[in-house]
């Protein structure tokens, strides 16, 4: 049995670290004072035995699984049915946990026709609120600074026209603004200071930076490689659809560095992770990855990247500083999806979709040994995943 007691909450949403190494020109806009820094999640003592809990959504069975990893085995604690159209696949897709750990949030891709954002109580896993967003709401995160939730409307239906980011007050479950970005936006993440929001537009090859307070687009970065003859930066949204000579990078995810003015973007179509310098707003390095990098998350100390290679069914673990892939590990399924890292940086949790009737899984990677250490079977097409908390075992 475990003793309930949250040691750390939701690694992906807790702001940690400092902007101490910012370039001079950007520092004034980014640097909080030392006293204002959020405290990193406490690392577990070496001899402390912890259970790690994550939530993962099964997109084709309309279920959310609560998965527990005890350091050796990964098991399903609970299965939570979600949705309101029982005979249709509504597609639970993105997940996040509120910074206080009291609620988890789930985007439902398909509605009538617009998708929903659900809010659940983490103690009871009961639905406590909902709000309709746009077409195919997908990934999301809450800024601990603004207190607002930012959810991209992926909209993979029909013409690849610019879609949007929905800004939601998670207390009242009300959409308070909707900002237009690019075609098929995905990978919604907030900067450590909580004042900027990043998302990629998969079909227009762009990285967007939103002002999290004013909800306005601040900057847009073209991530596609220039076509032959080169007019890569002159395209408008959606012009790349259908292929042609242009090689689309298809950015699917972005994750800011916890302490440096950097962000890491999965270029799914280019088999790269791009390191974007947020000061100069340029791509600084490109990491050549396995096939189809899809999600990426960085350890709280900023040392390692965990990247899901969706097309090859592998997971890559990277040394950030050296830009070296430390390990490329075969996943338990052929299609990998989401990544969540524990707040102590010890483990990476990767959801795997499977194909057809093959069940999804959650793979647990030991980030000290860079190896796969456990797998839990969950529902079909496991996708969205978020870390909830650790618990100390008696």
């Amino acid at each position, binding site marked *: 049995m475990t003793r309930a007691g949250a040691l750390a909450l939701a690694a992906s949403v807790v702001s940690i670290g400092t902007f101490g190494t910012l370039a001079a020109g950007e520092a*004034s*806009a*980014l*640097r*909080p*004072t030392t006293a*204002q*820094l*959020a*405290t990193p999640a406490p690392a577990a003592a070496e001899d402390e035995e912890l259970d790690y809990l994550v939530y993962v959504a099964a*997109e*084709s*069975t309309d279920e959310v699984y609560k998965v527990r990893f005890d350091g050796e085995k990964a098991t399903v604690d609970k299965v939570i*049915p979600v949705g309101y159209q*029982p*005979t*249709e*696949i509504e*597609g639970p897709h993105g997940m996040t946990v*509120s*910074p*206080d*750990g*009291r*609620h988890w949030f789930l985007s439902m891709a*398909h*509605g*009538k*026709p617009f998708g929903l954002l659900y809010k659940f109580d983490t103690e009871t896993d009961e639905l406590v609120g909902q709000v309709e967003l746009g*077409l*195919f709401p997908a990934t999301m995160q*809450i*800024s*601990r*600074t*603004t*207190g607002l939730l930012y959810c991209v409307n992926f909209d*993979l*239906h*029909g*013409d690849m026209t610019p879609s949007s980011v929905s*800004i939601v*007050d*998670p*207390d009242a479950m*009300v959409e*308070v*603004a909707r900002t237009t970005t690019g075609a098929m936006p995905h990978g919604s993440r907030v900067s*450590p*200071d*909580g*004042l900027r929001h990043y998302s990629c537009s998969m079909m227009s090859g762009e990285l967007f930076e939103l002002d999290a*307070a*004013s909800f306005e687009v601040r900057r847009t970065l073209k991530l596609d490689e220039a076509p032959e003859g080169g007019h890569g930066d002159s395209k408008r949204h959606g012009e790349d659809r259908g292929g042609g000579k242009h090689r689309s990078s298809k950015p699917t995810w972005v994750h800011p560095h916890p302490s440096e003015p950097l962000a890491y973007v999965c270029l799914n179509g280019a088999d790269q992770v791009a390191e974007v310098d947020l000061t100069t707003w340029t791509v600084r390095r490109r990491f050549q990855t396995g096939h189809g990098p899809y999600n990426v998350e960085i350890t709280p100390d900023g040392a390692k990247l965990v990247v899901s290679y969706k097309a090859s069914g592998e997971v890559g673990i990277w040394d950030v500083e050296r830009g070296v892939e430390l390990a490329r590990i075969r996943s338990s399924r052929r299609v990998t999806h989401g990544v969540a890292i524990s707040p102590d940086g010890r483990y990476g949790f990767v959801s795997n*979709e499977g*194909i*057809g*009737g093959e069940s999804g899984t959650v793979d647990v990677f030991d980030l000290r040994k860079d190896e796969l250490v456990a797998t839990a079977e969950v529902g*079909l*097409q496991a996708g969205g995943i978020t870390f909830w908390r650790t618990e100390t075992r008696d």
Partner: protein
Amino acid sequence: MKPLLCLVALLVSLAGPAAGQDEEAAPKLTLEVVPQDVELDVFDQLQLEVRVLDESGAEVDVDKVDGVRLVYFSRDREIADFSPPGVITAKGPGEGTVVVRAAGLGGPGASVKIAVRVAFPPLDRIEIRDVPEVLYTGTRASVSAMLVDKAGLERAEVPVQMALGSSGAATVDSLGHLTGVAAGRCELFAEVEGLRAQAAFEVVENPIRRIELTAPTERAQTGDVLQFEAIGRDEAGKPVEGVPIHFSFEAHPDDTLGQAATGQVEQDGRFVAEAPGVYTVVASSGGATARASVRAEPRDVQREVEFIGHGEVLDVHTSDLWVWEGVDKRDYAVTGTWGADGDALFWDVTDPADIQRIANVRVDARTVNDVKVSADGRICVLSREGASNRKNGIVILDVVDPRNPKILSTFTDELTGGVHNLFIYEDHVYALSAARRYDIINIEDPAQPYRVGSFELETPNHSIHDVWVENGIAYSSNWRDGVVMVDVGGGGMGGSPSNPVQMGSYAYPSGWNHAAFPYRDPETDKFYIVAGDEAFPFGLYTSERPTYPRGWIHFIDFSDRENPEEVARYQVPEAGTHNLWIEDDLLYVGYYNGGLRVVDISGDLLGDLYRQGREVGWFLPTHHEGKVPNAPMTWGPQPHKGHIFFSDWNSGLWSVRLKPEVEE
């Protein structure tokens, strides 16, 4: 702008950070916001005064201090919003909340909630509606009064009382019923909130002195719609036109043991009995009354539904089915699977008592919700949802040899949100896209399908669930938007697959519209769209326990396409409808937990067909090892060559037949 209610600065500390935020190590900012309460008229604006203070009480200049920002947002944007930031703009009447938050310094910010009341526009007038020019003594009319404000909005929340002048020529009750009492001029008044309206009408002596009431028959069956004819005659015996005659009825059912209401009469004289017995229809106008009686016999259409065969699917849920005569003249069926591994199952059903599974096609999907076969039996199309690459779309198969179905092509372009239902009609596939529209895809060359058209409603938040095509008209089911008729070549409005033209629509309040099937009754020549619901008010259970859906079948008379009227229903108590089929004058319904139902829909239709004894038969499919054991969950029926095939979500493909009627 009205005076502000409160100009006292509101000092808010971190006692009230936004919920969902932790407070660890966060520096304390406080906010001063003036005013706290706001009252505005529509389109008024108000600049807030906002100050951010640090822990020492010093003001923080958010434009100059690193990492501190003010966030303005509204929780009720239809009432008030910030535009530009810091300025409240009133958008519409009501009470709402806007929020100012000091965000920054890496921690949760202080929040101030401001109550905004936007006043309703001033009241403008009272409208008295439906006042007759002439009211005959001894007859009744319904009137209403509505308050309207200066924005033209109806203010139904304010009740308006009506009263009559002192002439005594009529009476009015609190429900707005006017009754003529004596000849004379009448004034009708309505007053509220200082506004007053009046209308006048004339009460005229009712010329009717007697009524001739004729029943169409003395003996009928329950469920028969009987048109009673009433003629009012004056003192001289001449027919009187234009004077209302009211209809009611007395019931004397055979079953006197607590029988409920047993019939229905319309004010055009149509009557239908639900239970056997003697009924007397009463026609009245002024002081004249007439009665005519009819005996309703039991409808006696019930027949036993006989089990014939079962193609078991016990490990996964089964979705839709299609049964067809193959190119080789044998009979085949295809069924989909739900929430599983993307299989479509093919069956030889030539001998319905010995259903044989002959092939399996697996596609990249979790749910193959719909399966259809072309009229010539050569092409099968599968819908896909939950594809691992999220492209979904449709899969087109060659089923000339159903034992060896061959995938000819897939079509996913703009169908990536999932295809829930589809239909094949004259070399085109009508495929739903992301529950938003249907695309029309040419499959003359099934190996190279291409889109030729698309139909999408323009209503706010529209959604679609199913489409069925017959005689060049597409009938779609659209949840809240109800059923929609679209000319795709046979509607006479210039429509075609590449130019679909909307012909008509009808929506009902529940928003449960899930299926639709056209039906023209040969006896009356009335044209109906028969619409089915789908609803799970008590949830759906995919394993371990049964599900109890709800919903019924709606009969919408579309004989006048411009004025469709919902005239009847078929509602099995405590069960829920799914798919349906009509052949000849029988309706077949997959009634989920109510199993298979067969209903007599011959002749004119009015009221609740279930209560009228029009149900012909039923069959509850169960299997002790079903996906949910012993739980009927019938998905969809299809009559074929004298048998009824149907798929059941928990147990697979079934065949039954109606036992022949036995002559006494």
